[in-house]
């Protein structure tokens, strides 16, 4: 096994990887940008190397700097986590060329699956159905327009190099196409250094269901079942479950086999995820894309199967055989994960950077927290606003939801706005409890949510608490009280309106 591994990432996933290394007695080396010197992932590491300024393209995305860092500390392997350089084949090559092990698939496999257009070709070769759409990248806006007309709206624009919803746009009519096309291109360029887009027909009431696969360097390829990731905003997942509420063993087997086929076609190694769209109308599933890395939502699979995916990744990268066969994989109980973002759900999930002035995380039975922050942590404007993942396990989906509800109510974060109030609403929502999910869930949820005002007593007591705090600190709430009362009140209107919208119903 490796003696020292460089963790080429930040935030909660860096912590997760450091923990995985620690448990195997491997020294973990963190990298950090100048903005991150005090981040939790640095504090938790055995060693840490600064790789550049705050902007990620000058630090976490800087291949030379990261590889140099790995060499400078004599790391034997590099774990990319997710995001940043995780799906950059050039990075994988640079790591290998530097004589180190890249903890992930071969650069060749990443090339094949990294570009969505070539990935779709692989799926076709493997006999796995794909969503009707362009197989090659669009050469121009005109082509986009023509193809869109051909398939008929609504259509999806996607970044060929993409992932994580960056550079992805749903276009419901021709009038929206240009603005969407331009925005997606810029976003794709910014996120992946490649503005190439392609276009797909949009599937009706699609469920986003993905299959976790694992392969070693000895030809063993297995799947660990599905994750349901239909609850998304801006095409980014916010809640994931294992198994899907559908929980159909036959569907699991068929999708699992399809995913394993694709893995075999590209001689995949390590952890990978094959994403499918499942039409809640027709019941058919289509290959969507493959993520050639560990997923954000891997904990729900770990909770239900019992396997430690990071541990397996390290063993596979070190040349070991998988510690289990397909027959050993059992799915016990139900797990649900909520991604806690520093975003304002009352304001279209806009990021809300800032300093965490108070943090109390839930604990107890069936609760797992993977957090990237501690008390007084800075949530910076430079990076993804996810601060933590809350995952729960229960014997049944019902028990898991009850635990999730309890854990969300325990969770206290102050100083920044988070998506916690949104989740508190979702776990009390009929449709969610019934498991009727598709990627349109949040839109409909926002429509149907009945806003229940809290009892007058709670409102009064909140005011009293504020008054107590004020009296103890004796600073006026407003710098210019007179001038700003009404202004403040006006601002507050929107703000409190928002807050009210997200009350527990």
């Amino acid at each position, binding site marked *: 096994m490796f003696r020292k591994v460089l963790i080429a990432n930040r935030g909660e996933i860096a912590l997760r990887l450091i923990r995985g290394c620690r448990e195997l007695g491997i020294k973990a080396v963190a990298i950090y940008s100048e903005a991150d010197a005090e981040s939790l992932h640095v504090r938790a590491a055995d060693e840490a190397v600064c790789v550049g300024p705050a902007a990620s393209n000058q630090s976490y995305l800087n291949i030379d700097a990261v590889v140099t860092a790995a060499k400078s500390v004599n790391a034997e392997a590099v774990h990319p986590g997710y995001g940043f350089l995780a799906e950059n084949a050039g990075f994988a090559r640079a790591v290998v060329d530097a004589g180190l092990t890249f903890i992930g698939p071969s650069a060749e496999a990443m090339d094949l699956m990294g570009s969505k257009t070539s990935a779709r070709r692989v799926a076709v070769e493997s006999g796995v159905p794909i969503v009707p759409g362009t197989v090659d990248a669009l050469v121009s806006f005109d082509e986009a327009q023509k193809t869109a007309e051909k398939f008929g709206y609504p259509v999806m624009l996607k970044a060929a190099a993409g992932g994580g919803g960056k550079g992805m746009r749903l276009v419901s009519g021709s009038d929206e196409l240009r603005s969407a096309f331009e925005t997606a291109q810029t976003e794709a360029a910014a996120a992946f250094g490649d503005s190439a887009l392609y276009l797909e027909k949009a599937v009706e009431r699609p469920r986003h269901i993905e299959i976790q696969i694992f392969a070693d360097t000895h030809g063993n390829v297995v799947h660990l079942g599905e994750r349901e990731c239909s609850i998304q905003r801006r095409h980014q997942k916010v809640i994931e479950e294992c198994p899907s509420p559908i929980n159909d063993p036959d569907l699991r087997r068929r999708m699992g086999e399809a995913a394993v086929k694709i893995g075999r076609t590209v001689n995949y190694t390590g952890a990978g995820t094959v994403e499918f769209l499942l039409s809640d109308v027709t019941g058919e599933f289509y290959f969507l894309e493959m993520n050639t890395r560990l997923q954000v939502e891997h904990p729900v699979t770990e909770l239900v199967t019992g396997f430690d995916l990071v541990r397996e990744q390290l063993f596979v990268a070190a040349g070991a055989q998988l510690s289990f066969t397909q027959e050993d994989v059992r799915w016990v109980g139900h797990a649900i994960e909520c991604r806690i973002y520093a975003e304002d759900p009352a304001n279209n999930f806009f990021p809300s950077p800032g300093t965490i002035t108070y943090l109390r995380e839930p604990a107890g039975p069936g609760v797992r927290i993977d957090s990237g922050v501690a008390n007084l942590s800075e949530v910076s404007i430079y990076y993804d606003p996810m601060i933590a993942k809350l995952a729960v396990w229960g014997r049944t989906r019902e028990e898991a939801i009850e635990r999730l509800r309890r854990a969300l109510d325990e969770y206290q974060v102050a100083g920044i706005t988070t998506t916690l109030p949104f989740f508190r609403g979702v776990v009390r929502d009929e449709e969610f409890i019934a498991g009727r999910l598709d990627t349109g869930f949040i839109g409909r949820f926002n429509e149907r949510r009945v806003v229940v005002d809290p009892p007058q007593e709670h409102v009064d007591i909140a*005011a009293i608490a504020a008054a107590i*705090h004020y009296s103890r600190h004796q600073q006026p709430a407003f710098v210019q009280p007179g001038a700003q009362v009404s202004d403040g009140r006006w601002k507050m209107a929107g703000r409190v309106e928002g807050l009210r919208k997200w009350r527990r119903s």
Partner: protein
Amino acid sequence: MKLKAVIDDREQDLNIQIDGGRVRAEIDGRVYDLELREPEPGSYLLFRDTEVHECRVTKTHEGFDVGLHGVNHGVAIVDPKRLRSGTDSDKHHHGLAEIIAPMPGKVVRIHIETGDAVEKGDGIVVVEAMKMQNEMKSPRAGVVVSINVKPGDTVNAGDVLAVVE
């Protein structure tokens, strides 16, 4: 101590006496006798008979954010004793709709020019932050009377990016 509390957009009279661990408060005639504890700075544990209310109070721009029973309340406290006289308030013109940056970020694109007529929902400005591009739409139909930013500008939360009349 006589204060005004602005909560849920309503201004109310709040008369409060704090005497060690005892708090007596009256809000618009509703009376509360509470026992007060502060287990952590900023965490106020209030007992009303047997009811337990733990309030987490944080200072914000507008006043205070109070977390209570999984709900966040925006509260502004106004202390009449501290008000300066002669307030020329309400600089805010209701004929105008301001497009305001909800967070710090960078302007990447501007879809309109001064004088353009826009419909409700038309894209006005695209701001990028945390690697995400967000199109700010016009909250109403009207004419663009001012654009205060250009592509590449860095903006802060609350900045007025453009105004539609």
